[in-house]
């Protein structure tokens, strides 16, 4: 014990921060790589013609954005993560895990500590030096926790992302209002993903059947989309900032800027559509083409988002 003890007190600050989250199951990181390289299956839609193509695109956009696509079930049990308590610090101070994963806190310090959630959802009780405490997290949440005897020891646990079997088994029907960005963004995305393809669809129907009411409906949908999409993007940025570095770098970069660009295009589209609406005209071919491109971009955008959530 004495020599150990001394090392602890002697260890420089650099030493104590080198302990990262050790992933015992390395499968996850490989999965991301494959996702990036394999390209986007949704950007090359099947060669449907005319109306069917648009219908297909709209359906795919809706489905991918709503995120109900089939997922590969991950092995139950999840990954193990370790947080080392040393020199009156939690290392690392922020851990991101997936639902179903287990986090183990190892007390490598010479003092007793606790792992106590701010919201009261868990409390380890005193963990004596050399002992550890672990817990499996099933619900998506961001929890700040601290050590009761040493309130200056603060850290954060983020449970998010790919739901595995045990997570789905614990899903309940209980109503709870959305509070966190990972709840807001997927909800808002539905509106964006539904309104734009339907607006295009409605305009095309209007041209085919020569009905003004279809065009009016299209104008309103484009307007709603232009109002809601900035909120969707804002929630997305919020989520990203809350998440930090734990996202696949390439995918999130494309997703965040494509999303931000989409906001501009939605507003442009709304102005364009408004001018057409004021003339009480049918939208031009150029407008419809522009909208179609935007729909395809949204489909791709939705598939990127889905991959980051479900890790496919």
């Amino acid at each position, binding site marked *: 014990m*004495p020599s150990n*003890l*001394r090392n*602890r*007190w*002697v*260890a*420089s600050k650099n030493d104590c921060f080198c302990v990262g989250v050790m992933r015992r199951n390395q499968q996850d990181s490989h999965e991301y790589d494959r996702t990036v390289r394999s390209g986007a299956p949704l950007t090359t839609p099947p060669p449907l013609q005319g109306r069917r193509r648009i219908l297909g695109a709209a359906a795919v956009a809706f489905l991918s954005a709503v995120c109900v696509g089939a997922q590969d079930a991950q092995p139950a049990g999840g990954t193990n993560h370790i947080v080392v308590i040393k*020199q*009156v*610090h939690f290392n690392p101070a922020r851990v991101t895990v997936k639902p179903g994963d287990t986090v183990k806190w190892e007390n490598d310090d*010479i*003092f*007793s500590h606790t792992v106590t959630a701010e919201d009261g959802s868990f409390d380890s009780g005193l963990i004596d*030096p050399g002992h550890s405490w672990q817990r499996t997290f099933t619900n998506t949440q961001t929890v700040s926790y601290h*050590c*009761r*005897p*040493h*309130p*200056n*020891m603060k850290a954060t646990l983020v449970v998010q992302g790919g739901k595995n079997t045990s997570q789905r088994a614990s899903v309940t029907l209980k109503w709870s209002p959305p509070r966190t960005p990972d709840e807001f963004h997927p909800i808002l995305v539905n509106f964006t993903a539904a309104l734009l393809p339907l607006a295009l669809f409605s305009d095309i129907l209007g041209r085919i059947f020569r009905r003004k009411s279809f065009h009016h409906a299209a104008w309103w949908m484009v307007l709603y989309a232009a109002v809601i999409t900035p909120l969707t993007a804002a929630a997305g940025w919020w989520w990203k900032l809350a998440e930090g570095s734990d996202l696949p770098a390439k995918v999130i970069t494309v997703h965040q800027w494509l999303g931000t660009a989409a906001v501009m295009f939605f507003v442009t589209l709304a102005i364009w559509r408004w001018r057409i609406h004021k003339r009480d005209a049918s939208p031009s071919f150029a407008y419809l083409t522009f909208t179609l491109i935007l729909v395809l971009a949204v489909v791709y955008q939705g598939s990127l988002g889905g991959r980051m959530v479900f890790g496919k």
Partner: protein
Amino acid sequence: MKLSRLCFATVFTFAVLIAAGEVKTYAQAPTDPQIAGIVQTANQIDINHAKLALQKTSNPQVKEFANQMISDHTSLQKSVNDLAKKLGVTPQDSPTSKQLKQQATDETKKLTSLRGDAFDKEYASHEVAYHQAVIDAAKTTLIPNAKNAELKSAVEGAAPLLQGHLEHAQQLEKSLGSK
């Protein structure tokens, strides 16, 4: 009650000022054996006060805090002793450690005379002030003057622990309703 608090605050403030002054004048640069002695003394004082608290209090929060102080400062004391042994440093008395002991004797007298709620509040607020003073002393005197790198980093390493005790003591003080 208020008067006694005021008296205490005044006495304490003077004590800290005197201690700080003493550090500057007499012990401008405490030697490593003196630094080890100061750390040991500071540890022992907190352990003694916690033991007194365990005898006198019936408040579970105060008991929990006192038990923690005994446990943490005993561990810290052991690691400091081990380190001193390893470095061949024999802890020595200094004006600062003598000052600390004198203040502790006075505080013990005061605590002994109090009972119940009054004791709990006095103990909590003294723990706040005491840890703050020790943190300040470590920052301004002990760390800058420690010659041996291991001793220096040991004192630096104790800072987050003392900060934790300070914040815990502040919580305790708040929940006891003494401001």
